[in-house]
């Protein structure tokens, strides 16, 4: 049984995993790029080793170096977190070869679900409903895809087979625009995953994106921990998740949960995983894909079930049985997660980089913040812009929204722009409060302007604030000019000396 875990990741998730290890009494090994020498995961781990330069390809994606460090440090397990090497079959297989426990599923399960095309084929065999789309598997050429597209019908989606997080995804409205979009999707997929393969899927309109957390042990027990509502997205990037979904009732939850379990069983799944579904207006649901790893938004499930998913992952990897049966999983209250990104919501969500000079975290009852940044830390352009996850729990959805609202109001981050104002505007949106949204909501029916009434009532205050700051600045620069005058007086005097004595 392992006792030292290497965390092959960075940022908040590396910190999250270190916490779980420490609470289980396991030693931790961090790896880091040159940009991350002072990152929190390096500071919190028992050991830390440099991987290489900042770009991921030269650091966090260097499987060879990571395995060398595992050997050198004596780490006998690796937790991959999400992203980077988390869904790389070859990496999981190499760990096994070296006698290192990969804290995740078997390589074969990663392979079966990692290629999204293959995954569809696999679950179709297990009678799991899927979104209509390409069913052939493998390297389809542009010609193949252009031929098949009309039979699927428009609008449709081009998706990266190795994909995730909306990267390499394009929406296609007509056959005419498809060649260009295929090209750009492949380009993005190649640059994100080193694999330019894509497949097609019918675009389900008015759909919700709802996923189920499953946990499976090596004794063959598989349970689900309920769903997460992930429809609040922008450019296929999740921005906010909640559990439970306001759209599901107990009956549908049970039905989808058992399909999720069946999907996991279809690939002999072990450890934590997530089955993503699309749910249409009429409550038909379709398997989208399986994420064979820990999910960014796992904390909301932890908040409503009381299960520590990362600790449970580690226990499973140590060969233990699941700590819970399906009957022992109870849902209590409502949890919401806001992803705090270094992006300017008033400027097209443009990424923002720079040094965090000041920060105040919201705290208090029912609030959890998972973050890897702190005052003094530099946000670089090399990695994902997500700098924190703000998670709240409330007895009801309404209470959770009120709590999230006050937590967002309390949160201060200075030095980079963040999307906190986006989340604040969202919390004030009547459609969001009413649970009336689908995956297009943010892009199509949401505006950062919010209520003009509220805006007008604060305009005078904004005017006063700007005026006072501008006034302060004018006064200060006047003082600097005066001080400089004094400072240079000696030089003037030297000049006079020169002239006098020339």
């Amino acid at each position, binding site marked *: 049984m392992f006792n030292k875990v290497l965390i092959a990741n960075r940022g908040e998730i590396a910190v999250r995993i270190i916490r779980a290890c420490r609470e289980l009494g396991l030693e931790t090994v961090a790896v880091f790029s040159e940009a991350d020498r002072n990152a929190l995961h390096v500071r919190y781990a028992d050991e830390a080793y440099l991987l290489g330069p900042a770009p991921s390809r030269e650091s966090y994606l260097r499987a060879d170096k990571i395995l060398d460090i595992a050997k050198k440090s004596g780490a006998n397990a690796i937790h991959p977190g999400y992203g980077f090497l988390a869904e790389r079959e070859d990496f999981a297989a190499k760990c096994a070869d070296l006698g290192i426990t990969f804290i995740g599923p078997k390589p074969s399960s990663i392979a079966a679900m990692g290629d999204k095309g293959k995954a569809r084929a696999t679950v179709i065999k297990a009678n799991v409903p899927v979104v209509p789309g390409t069913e052939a598997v493998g390297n389809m050429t542009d010609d193949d895809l252009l031929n098949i597209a009309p039979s699927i019908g428009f609008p449709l989606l081009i998706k990266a087979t190795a994909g995730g997080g909306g*990267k390499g995804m394009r929406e296609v409205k007509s056959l005419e625009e498809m060649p260009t979009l295929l090209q*750009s999707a492949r*380009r*993005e997929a190649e*640059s*994100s995953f080193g694999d330019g393969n894509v497949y097609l899927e019918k675009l389900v309109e008015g759909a919700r994106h709802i996923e189920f957390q499953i946990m499976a042990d090596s004794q063959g027990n598989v349970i689900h921990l309920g769903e997460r509502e992930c429809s609040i997205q922008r450019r296929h990037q999740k921005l906010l998740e909640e559990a439970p979904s306001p759209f599901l009732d107990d009956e549908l939850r049970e039905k989808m949960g058992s399909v999720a379990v069946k999907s996991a069983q279809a690939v002999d799944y072990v450890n934590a995983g997530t089955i993503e579904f699309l749910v249409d207006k009429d409550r038909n649901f379709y398997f989208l894909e399986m994420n064979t790893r820990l999910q960014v938004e796992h904390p909301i499930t932890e908040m409503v079930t009381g299960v520590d998913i990362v600790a449970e992952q580690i226990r499973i990897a140590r060969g233990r049985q699941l700590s819970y049966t399906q009957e022992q999983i109870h849902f209590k209250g409502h949890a919401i997660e806001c992803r705090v990104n*270094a992006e300017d919501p*008033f*400027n097209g969500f*443009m*990424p*923002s*980089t720079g040094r965090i*000079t*000041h920060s105040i975290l919201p705290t208090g009852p029912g609030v959890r913040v998972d973050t890897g940044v702190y005052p003094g830390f530099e946000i670089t*352009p*090399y*990695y*994902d*812009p997500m700098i924190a996850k703000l998670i709240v729990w409330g007895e009801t959805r309404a209470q959770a929204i009120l709590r999230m609202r006050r937590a*967002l*109001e309390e949160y*201060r981050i*200075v030095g980079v722009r963040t999307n*906190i*104002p986006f989340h*604040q*505007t969202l919390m*004030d949106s009547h459609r969001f409060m009413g649970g009336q949204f689908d995956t297009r909501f943010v892009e199509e029916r949401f505006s950062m302007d*919010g209520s003009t009434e*509220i*805006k007008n009532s*604060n*305009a*005078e*205050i*904004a*005017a*006063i*604030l*700007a*005026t*006072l*700051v*501008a*006034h*302060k*600045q*004018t006064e200060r620069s006047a003082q600097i000019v005066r001080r400089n005058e004094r400072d240079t007086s000696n030089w003037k005097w030297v000049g006079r000396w020169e002239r006098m004595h020339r």
Partner: protein
Amino acid sequence: MKYVTTIDGKEFEIEVVDDRHIRVGDRLVAVDFESVSGQPVYSLIFDGKSYESFVYQGEEDWEVLLRGRQFQVKVEDEREKRLRAAAGGGVAEGGEFHLKAPMPGLVVSLLVEEGQPVKKGQVLLILESMKMQNELKAPRDGMMGRIRVKAGESVEQKQALLSLH
């Protein structure tokens, strides 16, 4: 000192009387105004109400982030205001536009050539940053001027990328 402060075309006349008082229009009001921890974070107690705000200097105007809303605020003292009124207030519309990199990143591809006519909203260049492909678009119709970068080149924030006539 008297200021004329403008938000969305609406003007506020604000006079800073002393450290503790301002006059807004005709009203004399007590203010308690402090910057917090030496940061661009400001606490204002005004009429008993407690406000906190980020105030940044933008390219031209001040940006005030207050209760989840952003305000573009122009602050001018009386003299500036008069000067601008005398000049006619017209800001040149048709001049040359210089596209600068809004963040550090990698130029993934250039979608235009020098001398080519472009339409407002047309994608000129793709810049990869933070693992995202960001499309930089033309702010208006025009003709492409000098292009200063090549695909594959890394650029710094605010570096000049290309010009539009």
